[in-house]
């Protein structure tokens, strides 16, 4: 593995992404056993440092860590009264003093995992840094697509929703493109970055055209805060224009795979019926999340050197 840390998928090598996905499938088998445990990370201590609330990502990481026999510690910092800057450095260095091997961090500010690598020696895994990247989500998304289709190169993936504020989107854009997939962004023009084309993706504001074109859609959660910022007039308008509703899908007679990183706003960006249908691989994403996080932890923490065995 070329990188010590996993901070993002920008410029992340294709080989390494493939290795993670392949290893992820190996770990998926482990999750099928009666005893879902391997001793690979025995004796390793991993801290889950979450400055933002996130039950599902944290649980996913925790399960992955425990299945690998690692010891896990959870730290949930509240970012309320204290100046975030102060809490960050102090917290981080206090934890390092306790001799840990890796930190899985979620923080609201872009670039904070990179900063973390400057303050501590442990391995850093970015579980989401604000509106920047969420590499483990993109990896589990790609693993799920690979599982469903058998390939990623040439696959057509549409990402729908608030792209500008989505770390899931950005990491998926980098990862999918590295693996040779084609990406189209769809959403309100206030929520798609003006320099999107520089990322090498297509942009289309017509959800119906995107559905026709795509093999799979990754549907992002729309946050109500966007209305407060004046970027979106109403939830109703969003649903009319971009909602993946049962009716909309039925108008297109095609097989299209539906993905969602969760949590879902059922009835807003996606209908319950769609989310629960056979086309949706949302629960597979969740399981692949644990398996791929096991793969990531194993590949980054397992063993001292990068020497292959005989």
């Amino acid at each position, binding site marked *: 593995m070329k990188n010590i840390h996993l901070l993002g998928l920008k410029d992340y090598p294709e080989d390494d992404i493939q290795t993670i996905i392949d290893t992820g499938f190996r770990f998926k088998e482990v999750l099928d056993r009666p005893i879902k445990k391997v001793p690979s990370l025995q004796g390793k201590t991993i801290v889950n440092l979450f400055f933002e609330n996130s039950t599902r990502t944290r649980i996913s990481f925790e399960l992955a860590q425990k299945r690998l026999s690692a010891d896990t510690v959870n730290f949930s910092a509240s970012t309320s009264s204290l100046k975030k800057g*102060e809490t960050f450095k102090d917290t981080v260095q206090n934890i390092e003093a306790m001799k840990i091997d890796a930190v899985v961090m979620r923080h609201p500010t872009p670039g904070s995992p990179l900063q973390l690598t400057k303050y501590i020696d442990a391995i850093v895994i970015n579980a989401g840094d604000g509106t920047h990247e969420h590499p483990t989500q993109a990896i589990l998304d790609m693993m799920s697509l690979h599982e469903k289709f058998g390939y990623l190169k040439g696959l057509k993936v549409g990402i729908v929703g608030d792209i500008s504020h989505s770390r899931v989107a950005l990491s998926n854009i980098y990862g999918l493109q590295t693996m040779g997939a084609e990406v189209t962004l769809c959403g309100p023009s206030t929520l798609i970055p003006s320099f999107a084309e520089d990322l090498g993706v297509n942009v289309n504001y017509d959800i119906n055209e995107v559905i026709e074109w795509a093999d799979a859609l990754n549907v992002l959660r729309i946050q109500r805060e966007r209305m407060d910022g004046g970027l979106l007039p109403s939830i109703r308008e969003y649903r009319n224009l971009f909602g993946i509703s049962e009716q909309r899908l039925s108008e297109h007679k095609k097989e299209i795979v539906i993905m969602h990183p969760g949590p879902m706003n059922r009835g807003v960006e996606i209908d319950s019926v769609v989310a629960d249908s056979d086309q949706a691989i949302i629960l597979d994403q969740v399981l692949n999340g644990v398996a791929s996080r096991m793969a990531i932890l194993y590949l980054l923490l397992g063993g001292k050197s990068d020497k292959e065995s005989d």
Partner: protein
Amino acid sequence: MNISKLKKNIVLKNGTILDPYNNTEKKGDIHIENGKIKSVGKISAPKTSETIDCKNLIITHGFFDIHVHFREPGREDKEDLNSGSLAALAGGFTRVCTMPNTDPPIDSPESIRYIVDRSEECPIHIHPIGSITKSQEGKEITEMGAMIAEGALAFSDDGLPINDSGVMYNALEYSYMFDVPIINHAEDDCLKRDGLMHEGKVSTHLGLPASPDITESNMVFRDLELSILTGARLHVPHVSSAKSISHIKSMKKKNDKITVEVTPHHLFFSDEDLYTFDTNLKVAPPIRTKKDRKAIIDAIKNGIIDCIATDHAPHTIEEKEGTFDMAPFGMIGLESCFGAASKVLINDNAMDQMSLVKLLTANPRKILGLDQNLFKEGTEAEIAIYDPKLEWKFSLENIYSKSKNSPFLGREMKGKIKSTIVKGHITSID
């Protein structure tokens, strides 16, 4: 750095003397007697004179930075007038103007008086700039007349823009009778929102909230038009965008009351340097694209830019160590200014020494109505001596400010200040 009192007679021997006021360059000596210029060029000084060998060095006027933040009163932990003076001396500066966004702000004749009195104890000349509006709230203009009487040279709410065009109109109209510049930090708050850097390709990759170039250029345009309308002096600080340059270029033709400054960091860096999320590159206005940088360099070469000013903005290590959103805007700049500007303009862009020197000496003095003829006999000796060819790396030991927030650390510089003479003292650096 070593500061010592000038001996009664001192000769700067065998240097290249650049006079940016008379626009002359010649090899020769300078004789300073009792801290004042005695003769320049071919001199006859007493044998007891102390001699400073200036072979292969350039001798010129001491630099003048019209835009620094010395944080006194209120944040003396970051910098005070004394430490700021040391930083200035290290950069070849003999004179600075301090911005009023202190705590409390310099918005009254009493506070101007405070700075003037305090500066008597400092090794360089310090001129206070007063704020345009009371408490820098952007509403009511200050007692400019009384403040000028106490020593204010210009007015600015720097750090904060005057968002209300009506207030800016008033400020310019009022300042007209005093013929001093109004300096407005041009960044439209409504367009800026929570922007932390320039809005472009790079900010998209970094996921950081950002503001486009028109955040600055729209307001610059407004200020330029108001200057023309009122006939008042406008000095545009820290220009960062090609668009602003374009507006300035066309309006300067119609109006000689408009002056413009740029910072060394807008000459040296582009937004692509922010991939490392270095908080020392978080500045306002932000560092923009390579295209904007090129436009600024071209504007300097074409004489559209009047001077270089550092916007020296000290912040503590703790403040800059926080996450990108929490770190305050700004970087120190006095110590790195010459090396950086010389590298970019002279080394990389074929500018000549005299042009760069003018941007740091005669031009800013002209803008604020100070004496420019510093080599005239009897004038207090304000001199910078530098090695134009020396290539060096900027490091912590080159910093004399209390704060260390500089993105120039580790960067290659060309041209280094050797000595600075002012107020009867000579400072030799390293």
